[in-house]
């Protein structure tokens, strides 16, 4: 373990929302602070996202960048088991999936910890990981 690196869930660094169109989902990842954006660019890659969603078998994962918003938009095709009309999922829209993406673990330089907003619950658990 590199002592200069902390491992934190993406949820500490960014927020996001999932939407659906047919069988395609999009999930935004928006940096809480401008300073976090370069780290997100480096760590939250198409490859990592594909891996996080591999059990949902997306046929394509594409990352679009919106640097002026400090945001990126992931588009995952054919991932919703047919979409709202076909899927047997309780959440046939895939609306909850934003928080699956936000569970992704990010390796951050430890100086970043000072910039993180304090969190009332779950913080100790997050930093211990």
């Amino acid at each position, binding site marked *: 373990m590199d002592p200069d690196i902390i491992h934190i869930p993406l949820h500490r660094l960014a*927020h996001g929302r999932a939407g659906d169109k047919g069988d395609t989902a*999009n999930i935004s990842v928006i940096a809480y602070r401008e300073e976090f954006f370069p780290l997100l660019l480096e760590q939250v890659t198409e490859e990592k996202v594909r891996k996080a969603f591999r059990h949902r078998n997306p046929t394509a994962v594409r990352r679009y960048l919106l640097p002026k918003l400090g945001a990126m938009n992931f588009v995952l095709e054919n991932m919703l088991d047919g979409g*709202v009309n076909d899927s047997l*999922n*309780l959440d046939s829209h895939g609306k909850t999936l934003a928080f699956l993406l936000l569970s992704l673990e990010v390796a951050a330089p430890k100086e970043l910890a000072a910039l993180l907003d304090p969190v009332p619950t779950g913080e100790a658990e997050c930093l211990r990981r």
Partner: protein
Amino acid sequence: MRHETFAIGCAAGFGGDRTDAAAPIVETLIARGGAGALIFEMLAERTLALAQLDRRKNSEGGYAPLLESMARPVLRRCLEHGIPIVSNFGAANPRAAARRIRQIAQEQGVSQARIAIVEGDDLSDARGRELLRRFLSPADLGCEMISANVYLGAAAIADALRAGAQVVVTGRVADPSLAVGPAMWRFGWGETDWDTLGRATMAGHLLECGAQVTGGYFADPGFKDVPDLHAVGFPIAEVAADGSFTITKADATGGVVNARTVKEQLLYELHDPAAYLTPDVVADISEAEVVEVEENRVAVKGVRGRPRPETLKATVCYAGGWLGEGEISYAGPNAEARARLAGEVISRRVGDALKLRFDLIGALSVFGDDRGAALSALPVNDMRDVRLRVAGVHSDRAQVEKLLGEVTALYTCGPAGGGGIRTTITPRLNSVSCFVPRELVPATFTILE
């Protein structure tokens, strides 16, 4: 500068939204003076198919079930203060919806309300089906069609307002067009003012889901807090003559409009940020910025527009068989193992008679996949309060009833300590989309006689 803007409030973001959101918006528009409009967005993809089924049963039905609850509290105030109402609450029967609104207006003492109906979206009649033959695959043509609608744009809404309409009732139009139409009318935009239409379209995009831009669907306690979420205010876009706009919300309401709420909604249901396709324009937000102008007021800058697509999207809905869902709870020691065994029992009883999915609510459900790969890979975790969910679909209702009978029988034949069984059967709808050259599906408006 504010007096030069046109304020568009949105009081519903889907067919089942709150019915008390409109009044604070209308009172805000009136208090601020200046010109304004009120929109309700009430049609999801499948809502229209359900409405079409209603209409088959009742020739005066088929509009949004909540139309009256939405319109009644504000109709008179809007008519008296020159605030046009624009909504897709006409669903599968805009004409019947318009008649109902006229009735409500009359009950409220306004006898001369001018109500317009926008039509041309409905392709479920013989002529529409004939047209769609050219654009659908042969496999789709063989199915039992329930509804077929093309997404219309803003122009017919603007035309109706120009003809003096106080209420514009539509069926399927692109959601942002509900806002672009009134702005187009107000500022006299042409149909090829691409940058202007691109900006206004993003204003409409931010409005179309109601509270999703004002703190609804946003709160994450400790991370993103929202004041008075229980009383979240619905949004208002203040649009300028060049289409640029700020987003704010109704006075004296809860919720929040800040850079974060606006960014989340800006990217909602968006694919390529450089190409957001609508019937009116291709909007480009790849260089967009958001600026917090003051408390609860955010400006969106840098949106551009390019020429609109030559085709319009059409969505066709088919009967899709029956969905059965059954659930049973297990709690306490060894609960997860008992729930998993219950799933195995169902699976072995039903075999492959129908497509099944299992979830362990409390351990893994919505994140999982229909094939169950994620659930099989999940180690048994000794979760102590779990609910097994079984879902299955079949074209034959009897097969689905049989599945749910097996869930019910878990009471006496399943593992120990199961309780709280619930089962439901719902008809399913399937949908496909295709693209139709726009000149083949013109939009028209008429004023209700």
